[in-house]
């Protein structure tokens, strides 16, 4: 008598993508994907395509012009000047956000309980102020008459004898505008740095104390290396703030050629000159610069940290 045969069959699995869990996954990412396609990828594609076209609102010609728009933009003295100004904003904003943000985060780390919550709340406030509103607030401070807060304060302290047009000064003007951006951009840096500092195990500091490390040595040898991911993120955020800077500049100085940025140039090409082709080309140039900076930061600054 032969033993009964046992049939072994492989379980039937749905094809990849048809499993209920897969469908749920697609469903969950669908809203975000649709938003990204509609608000990021599609406009990007339109901008890149339009940058190779003659695209003026005052005529119907949409012919392909190759790299002509890029050549026009890059050889335009206004755009070149805006690029230099943007570079200045970039340096000041990056250094400002990095140094002040890290300094405030280190200070906050020394506080405990209600004091830390209160201080953090106050520090975060400027982050909630939109760029245009921030520009208006600062304009009251820099107003070049006696009504300006800075002029009236310095006059009453006998620091200045007559009212000054602060924002019209060749170097100080752009510097002050950059500082208004630092004021609004630093809180995010503080939050990122504080979170990163809180994530560093305390026993690392305790062990270093046993080895006789001073607080400065602890900062340079423990905190700073372990903050590299946070530094990269904060610097990248500062770079996008500088390259995309428009509202504060527009509110504080209008279309002053010595203060406009690359982002303001895009606006002027498109909305003042009605030349969307040049506007698209300037936007693509700005996007490429931002991407290059992001890649550099990720390669040179960012490091995976494991504890």
């Amino acid at each position, binding site marked *: 008598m032969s033993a009964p045969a046992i049939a072994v069959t492989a379980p039937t699995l749905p094809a990849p993508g048809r499993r209920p869990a897969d469908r749920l996954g697609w469903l969950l990412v669908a809203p975000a994907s649709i938003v990204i396609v509609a608000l990021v990828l599609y406009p990007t594609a339109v901008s890149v395509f339009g940058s190779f076209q003659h695209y003026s609102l*005052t005529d119907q010609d949409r012919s392909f012009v190759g790299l002509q728009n890029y050549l026009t933009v890059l050889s335009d003295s206004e755009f070149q000047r805006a690029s230099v100004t943007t570079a200045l904003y970039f340096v000041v904003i990056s250094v400002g956000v990095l140094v002040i943000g890290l300094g405030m985060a280190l200070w906050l780390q020394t506080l405990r309980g209600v004091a830390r919550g209160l201080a953090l709340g106050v520090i975060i406030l400027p982050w909630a102020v939109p760029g245009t509103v921030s520009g208006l607030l600062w304009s009251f401070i820099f107003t070049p008459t006696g009504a300006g807060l800075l002029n009236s304060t310095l006059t009453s302290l006998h620091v200045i004898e007559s009212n000054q047009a602060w924002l019209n000064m060749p170097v100080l003007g752009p510097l002050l505008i950059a500082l208004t951006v630092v004021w609004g951009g630093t809180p995010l840096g503080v939050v990122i740095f504080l979170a990163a500092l809180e994530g560093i195990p305390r026993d690392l500091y305790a062990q270093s104390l046993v080895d006789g490390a001073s607080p400065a040595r602890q900062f340079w040898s423990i905190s700073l290396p372990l903050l590299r991911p946070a530094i990269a993120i904060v610097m990248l955020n500062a770079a996008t703030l500088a390259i995309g800077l428009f509202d504060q500049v527009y509110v504080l100085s209008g279309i002053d050629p010595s203060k406009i940025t690359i982002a303001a140039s895009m606006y002027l090409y498109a909305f003042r000159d009605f030349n969307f082709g040049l506007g698209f080309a300037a936007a693509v140039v700005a996007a490429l610069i931002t991407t290059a900076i992001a890649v550099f930061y990720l390669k040179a600054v960012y490091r995976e940290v494991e504890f």
Partner: protein
Amino acid sequence: MIGFSGVHPRVVALTAVALSAAFFAGPAGAADYTPGAIDKSLAGTTITLLVPPWAAYKQALLDDFTARTGISVNVESIDFDSIHDKVVTAAASGQAVADVIELDWTWVSQFGAAGWLAPLDKLLSSQEVADAVGANSFVFNGQQVGLPYSLDFRGSLVNMTKFKQAGLSDPPSTWAQVLDDAKKLKAAGVSEYPIALPLSITENTSTPWYMLVRAAGGEVLDEKGQPAFATNGLGVSSLQFIRDAYAAGLIDPGAIGLTQEQVDNEFLGGSAAIMLSAYPGTVNFADAGTKGSNIVGNELAFIHVPGEKNNTGGTIALEEALAIPALSKNQQAAAMYLSWTLDPNTQIAAYKDSGPLPTNQNALKALSTDPDNKVLMQSVLNFIPSIEPVIPGGPPTWYTKFSAEVAATIQAVALGQVTAEKAVDDLAAKTKQIAAQAN
């Protein structure tokens, strides 16, 4: 094959009929519409307005329009600069941002060339257009594309009370006299900065310079858009005048960063004695702001802007108009709103309600008998024959870029960063370059 398989044929047919009807129907309107009539032929329609705050009439006044026409009005009032961008964004994407929009004189050529403005010739009566002062600034390719509702030109406002305190009995008529008088006002301690003049890099700095050149009998740009200021000699002399005034401390040093409103306030606040290039409505004693100013009770004069050798060129029109987007579906109802806005009674009521200076000549004449407005309105009426467009033939499509260059040039000259001669040479070269790029 792409087809309509699976869709009921009746649905396809109904959709096609509906789309065809929508396509061929065009803008909604009445068959018996009469241009210029303010009646109930379009009752039940609702129109939208996109206008700056000073053109957003109070609800009580708008209720009068609705009562007379049965047309409802939704007003969106935003700041002047944002209107331009909003119109551009909507029109570039094939939408009418509203049925009635603000149209500044500087936007006419760009909006006209883009085909965004509905011709008004068949929507308004020829008499309405003729009655509106400065309507010729809103003609593009021979068609009326906007109707001015706010009379804006430039004269000089002089505070004669302050002049007399400094021993000056007459207002100045030449640039040299302006400088002399201002020095006397400053020396007498009547005014630290007697001349109110904006010098920030904005359109408000460019227009006073156009006015100075016009007052001296010249043009800034000729009919072909060429830099006339470089060949008539007035570019250099007018810029030198500004430099002299600024260098002598006769203009507030902070003027390089002041807005037009802040410069207005220097005059209204009594710190300046002469506002060289002033909007006639700057002093509106029907307005609460002026009533509360420091110059109430002062003797004021509104005179032609001084020229190099007296005013020989009249004044410039800087008006604002209402226009109808070509894509508006309610063009007739929108035109009826324009007709109502231009009605003398509406304009008088709006002006007395802190609104703009009327453009209808009958409204101005009526206001000139009003005790509160008599002096100003009589001056305004005297100006009317000399009001001409800033640029003969209208602003070129590249005007706004040119204007920004002008403002930057004026500021650089005022600060002494460049001489008037070099500034004019550079500006002329830049103007030609901008024009060549645009063409």
